[in-house]
């Protein structure tokens, strides 16, 4: 939620400043979140979900001058999406379910939960590796440390680091395959 806010806000402000690339990245990021938000709420009419998504994107685009940088951009997006969804239900002549007024994280946490799950899964698998392989992978692959720094840090040779990383990765792949199946 906080990450999404910082990232989207930066893109939004650059887009407002005239950076078309940032604006496109902003709309793309938002459309992913919106799709995940709208689909389950329009389960009975999935073809409407994409139309409504496009309506929200157009509203976000054409009304973007109503965004004030001193307020969270996620709340601004959520308010527009919520309004458009309610408006859609109203036009269809049904009241639909209740959508809370201030619940922007409804829109911005779903995808991040998945990312958090993935992180936890990787950690669980790493715990099953031998100590040396785990240390090497964490430093080289996750923290981005160089091979020579890792070698110095763990007091082993550079080739040992390379081999341990390689073996560890192979084992991880195999474990992941097992987990999938």
């Amino acid at each position: 939620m906080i990450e999404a806010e910082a990232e989207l806000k930066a893109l939004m402000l650059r887009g407002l400043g005239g950076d078309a690339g940032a604006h496109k990245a902003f709309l793309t990021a938002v459309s992913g979140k919106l799709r995940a938000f709208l689909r389950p709420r329009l389960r009975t009419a999935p073809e409407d979900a994409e139309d409504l998504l496009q309506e929200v994107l157009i509203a976000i685009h054409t009304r973007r001058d109503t965004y004030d940088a001193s307020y969270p951009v996620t709340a601004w997006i959520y308010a527009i999406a919520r309004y458009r969804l309610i408006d859609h239900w109203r036009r269809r002549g049904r009241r639909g379910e209740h959508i809370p007024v201030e619940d922007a994280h409804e829109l911005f946490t779903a995808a991040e939960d998945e990312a958090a799950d993935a992180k936890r899964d990787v950690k669980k698998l790493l715990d099953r590796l031998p100590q040396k392989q785990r240390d090497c992978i964490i430093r080289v692959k996750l923290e981005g440390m160089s091979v020579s720094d890792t070698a110095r840090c763990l007091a082993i040779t550079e080739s040992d680091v390379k081999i341990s990383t390689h073996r560890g990765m192979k084992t991880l792949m195999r474990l992941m395959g097992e987990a999938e199946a």
Partner: protein
Amino acid sequence: MKTDDLIEALARGSEAPKALVWPRLAFALIVGLLIAVGLVLTFFGMRPDIGAARMMVLMKAGFAALGAGVVLPLLLQLAKPGRGPGWRIAAIGGFALLCVGAVAVALMGGDPSTRFEAWTGGAFPWCIVLIPLLATPTAALLGWLVRDLAPTRLAMTGAALGAVSGGVGAMAYAMYCPTDSAAFVVTWYAVAIALCAVIGAVAGSRLLRW
């Protein structure tokens, strides 16, 4: 059209349009007031003793302007997507308390035998009908602005819009209003403005859709 193509087209699109909030707001408030004043002069006429009662008229108009001014921050806040009302509601609550206090003080200071009449004006308070009518031009002009700001909570936005318009309508009405008792003015002008807020909430939830 595929969503990716839409995003591509939007990103290539022109600059964001500027809503020009402040000039349009000033325009709505000033023109709305002028039209209401024109309506008062045309249909009711200015009160005959306007020369002697100038101070009273100004004070009543000032009170009405204060009522509009206290709600204006809430209207501007609600008019844009995703903003909570925050302290702006408290400002209105404070103003309402001030009104109650002022009425109480004014009535306590008066002669008990005429107290009730000072409060009710002794007749039907026409201002609660006329102020909403005089508020209509301002409400229409403000609605034209607010719809462009994409309000997402229409009833609340409409209520704030109605109250601001009611304050402007009451400013014009003060030129005609023959009653000068402070308790009367504070009570019935505030009731009229509150009534405008209720009408605004009902009308706004339909007319402010965008």
